């Protein structure tokens, strides 16, 4: 397919597997909802509304999708199940297409920057450290040199945890230990990368709730400090969102953007029963592209987000 060029070829299967639960959830319900019906009526739209809401798409985005479908079927009153599936998929993909540029190949981003600096942020426990571990591994496996900066100096054993992850991939690990200034760790990580001519720098930060002003200010400072050695750094600020998070994810994205100007999202834990509908909502309303999804705890359980494939997997096509 080419869409997973960044990773190995058999990943589509994994994505399907990871999203199996979502698919069962949403679209078998849709199938049931329209079984025995050959046209779209209010009852169906109500059902669809429930299904989308139950997937954490959010009321606003759900209503938007419904409106679009209503508009479409106003022209084309009678549709079959398979037509309806396609229509739904179209509308959701279109919604994603309208608002963000698709991330096609993450190696493209690296071009022209050496090192390319990615700062990873998010609320507590969403999977920042794990995602960095997985990312480092993917880059290293593809012949890039990676420096990891342990700028979570706060949470118990955060440095130890990240160290284990960097050993898994063989990335260079920069740490000042616990309870040290996170900004200076970030600064030194970038410095180290320049020294050894590394391709990528990954900066882990402590989990923080977006309503804590002091912690958000600290985050802005960490970001600022890096631009002192490379003016354009960090080149990417990635917000990690737990796939089971509800509508609070919007506020997270909003506040983290305010503090650090997010450039991408990673959505984790999509191997669970959570539907991941939050992805659609955030892309639609905040216009920040989803770049990766996490589908497990192992080093290989990270995938480039591809909307076509994502929606297709979701629909079971």
């Amino acid at each position: 397919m080419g869409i997973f060029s960044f990773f190995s070829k058999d990943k589509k299967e994994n994505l399907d597997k990871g999203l199996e639960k979502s698919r069962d959830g949403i679209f078998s319900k849709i199938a049931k909802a329209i079984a025995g019906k050959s046209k779209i009526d209010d009852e169906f739209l109500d059902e669809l509304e429930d299904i989308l809401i139950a997937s954490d798409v959010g009321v606003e985005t759900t209503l938007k999708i419904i409106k679009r479908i209503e508009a479409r079927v106003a022209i084309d009153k009678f549709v079959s199940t398979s037509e309806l599936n396609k229509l739904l998929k179209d509308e959701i993909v279109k919604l994603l297409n309208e608002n963000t540029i698709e991330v096609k190949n993450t190696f493209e981003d690296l071009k022209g920057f050496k090192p390319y600096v990615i700062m990873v942020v998010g609320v507590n426990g969403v999977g920042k450290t794990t995602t960095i571990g997985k990312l480092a591994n993917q880059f290293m496996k593809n012949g890039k040199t990676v420096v990891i900066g342990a700028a979570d100096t706060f949470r118990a054993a955060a440095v130890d945890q990240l160290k284990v992850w960097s050993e898994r991939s063989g990335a260079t690990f920069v740490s000042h230990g616990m309870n040290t200034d996170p900004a200076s760790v970030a600064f030194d990580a970038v410095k180290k990368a320049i020294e050894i001519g590394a391709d990528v720098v990954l900066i882990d930060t402590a989990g923080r709730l977006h309503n804590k002003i002091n912690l958000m200010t600290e985050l802005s400072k960490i970001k600022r400090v890096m631009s002192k050695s490379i003016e354009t750094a960090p080149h990417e600020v990635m917000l990690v969102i737990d796939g089971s998070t509800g509508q609070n994810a919007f506020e997270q994205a909003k506040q983290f953007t305010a503090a650090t100007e997010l450039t991408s999202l990673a959505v984790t834990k999509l191997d669970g029963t959570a539907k991941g509908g939050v992805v659609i909502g955030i892309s639609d309303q905040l216009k920040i592209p989803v770049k990766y999804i996490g589908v497990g705890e192992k080093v290989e359980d990270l995938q480039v987000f591809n909307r076509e494939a994502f929606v297709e997997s979701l629909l079971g096509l």
Partner: protein
Amino acid sequence: MFDNLNSKLDRAFKVLKGQGRITEINVAETVKEIRRALLDADVNYKIAKEFTDKVKIEALGQNVLTSVSPGQLMVKIVQDELTTLMGGQARDINLKGNPTVILMSGLQGSGKTTFSGKLAKLLKEKRGKNPLLVACDIYRPAAIDQLKILGEQIGIKVYAEPENKDAVKIALNALKEAKLNGVHDVVIIDTAGRLAVDEQMMDEIAKIKAAVNPNEILFVVDSMTGQDAVNTAKAFNERLNFDGVILTKLDGDTRGGAAISIMSVVQKPIKYVGTGEKLDAIDVFYPDRMASRILGMGDIVSLVEKAQENFDKDEASRLAKKISKNEFNFDDFLTQLGQIKKMGNIKDLMGMIPGVGKAIKDIDIDENSFKGIEAIITSMTPQERQNPDSFTGSRRLRVAKGSGTSIQEVNDLIKQFEEMRKMMKTMNKFQGMGRSLKNMPMFK
């Protein structure tokens, strides 16, 4: 804190305002708004539907008998129903058994390890227990180190077997040791995060349960969880039949609708909440407070109690009394600011004051932002401070000069203060409608 839902409900109630009684027609829009508000708060869509249907029936049934306005009536009904949904009374954790065995369970990253530390600290400091923490997460990198560090911070022993790859055996060995040396009267078992659909991992924790026969199994859940909360809670409950729920990360601005969903699906009480990363950021769960928080009535009881615990008890109850009598003045405000400042996260605590939550929704608050307020109040004469209604233009000008602020700032503060008092007054009215302040623990 729950500002979004608040403003949504405000809007919903506004629809009812000025209408004398509740009818099928005039309640429909309100019910719809409430449902939408609940959905935005992450209450499960089915439960939100059931809930609003129930509220509607209640409202229609009651209107003839009461003389309060439809809006007030709806507030009461919604709050009562929410409280009922979340389980009525607060419930303690079971400390029977010798030693008491407590087993943690939950999804990845929900806060199990942190909560294990918090609970151990609480049991040690407030219940005179001597807990043993057990590290049964053999998967997550540095999971054992994390628990060990927490144990060190609070002076509590951590049992770990870094080389052992069998979580069931580790749990059993820990229990054996606790029984053998007889020092520990509580054993808290921290486990790895797991997905409800991960058969192997669910098997593991079921086996741990069977092996150690816990007195208390706790399901730890992130308060930011969305619609999936019901599925996960149900699956864990079916497998473990847990005894209570722990709701973490409530120090955020999530509206926490998951609390409502979980309670109504598994019928298990939420026993504690996590309100921060530090190990003393733990609180008991009060369904009525949560309900009133969701409804935007502020959490004045929590605020006062927090003040009570950390500071002068007399001062706190004096404050509560003043609030209830609507005699709250600038001196009280100053005292309160001083206490709030010492208590930690200012925005959170301010949010507990009725009416303030919304006012500070989009405002950055840091310690320094209080300086101006303090300067203004200390520039008032004692009489002015005790009689907030006494401000003429010339007095305002004098206060502005004295405090080095502008007249605009003084005007703003007085206006905000007035609004706050107004909110407190409304709050008292609501309290009078049912659960009067006298029934709350602090007034007993």
